[in-house]
């Protein structure tokens, strides 16, 4: 699959880059890291224009993110409302919205370029918690432009071995995601077993809540 996509990229250039980034940002698992590094290598060899790649790539990723946000805001929010009406949890939803309002910007920004695998989930959850769209767009655009510039330039610098670099970056990203999630969860579990407090998975209430 990735071989075919990269072959199309090599053959048709930036329109394919735009299309793949839209669907990847919307949540379809395509090998975007390898693609951006390969694009950087094509730029280094004079087969693609750097500015065209940066502009079209950023636009593609931003458009894809808006699709995820709109899905969350429309269908996702309706689904959550239906569930909370039946089984309760309206208060939890309100706390989640408040939490999103407070920390959403950082989450959106860092999930664009540092912990990329979380990006599509953050898009949908931002829509579900009705995170203000202008702020979502601002953080999203900043993060996506940084991601595109960073990866294309890395591909441009290490242009003779993009597959090895993609493997390395992919693994490092997952290590970062795993360390972040394990640290947060590990801290909650540790506190529970040490102090006897209940572990809370509620996003709006800090690390743990007294029983």
């Amino acid at each position, binding site marked *: 699959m990735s071989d075919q996509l990269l072959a199309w990229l*090599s053959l048709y250039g930036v329109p394919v880059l735009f299309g793949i980034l839209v669907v990847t940002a919307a949540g379809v698992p395509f090998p975007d890291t390898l693609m951006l590094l390969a694009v950087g290598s094509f730029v280094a060899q004079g087969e693609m224009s750097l500015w065209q790649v940066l502009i079209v790539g950023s636009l593609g990723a931003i458009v894809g993110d808006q699709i995820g946000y709109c899905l969350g805001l429309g269908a996702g929010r309706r689904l959550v409302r239906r569930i909370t009406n039946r089984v309760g949890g309206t208060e939890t939803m309100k706390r989640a919205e408040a939490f999103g309002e407070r920390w959403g910007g950082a989450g959106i920004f860092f999930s664009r370029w540092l912990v990329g695998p979380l990006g599509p989930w953050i898009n949908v959850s931002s829509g579900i918690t009705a995170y203000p769209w202008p702020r979502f767009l601002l953080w999203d655009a900043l993060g996506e432009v940084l991601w595109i510039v960073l990866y294309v330039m890395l591909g441009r610098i290490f242009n003779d*071995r993009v597959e090895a670099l993609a493997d390395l970056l992919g693994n490092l990203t997952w290590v970062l995601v795993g360390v972040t999630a*394990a640290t947060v969860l590990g801290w909650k579990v540790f506190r529970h077993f040490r102090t006897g407090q209940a572990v809370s998975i509620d996003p709006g209430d800090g690390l743990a809540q007294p029983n």
Partner: protein
Amino acid sequence: MRSTIIRTARTFRWLPWLGLAVFLLLAGFTAFKAVDAARSVIYWHAHRDEPIRGWMNVGYVAHSYRVPPHVLYLALGLPHQPPDRRPLRVIAKMQHRSMNEIRAILQNAIVHARPPYPPPPPPSEGRAP
């Protein structure tokens, strides 16, 4: 007996234990990926040449293996000017060859374009081997 089990099940605080289980799973996954990352770093240091893939074009392979592009174009029976931007899998299809054949042809040409073999002259000065 049955009511004791039901009561225990109802009063058992499963959430912390579920949290611990998920934490252990996450820690295992992270360790696995860290080993993969370390392996990638070792591979990065040990190999400069990338495996030849169908998405690469002749220019990329020549650049990655640091050989003159015309050597590879000649080996595939393609004109070297203007540079052919098509991916290798498209070239393979046009030439009714498998990717393995294309890979073997290119690797053979690369070996003969690197020391201890003398580099072939560019086409304007003579025929490449």
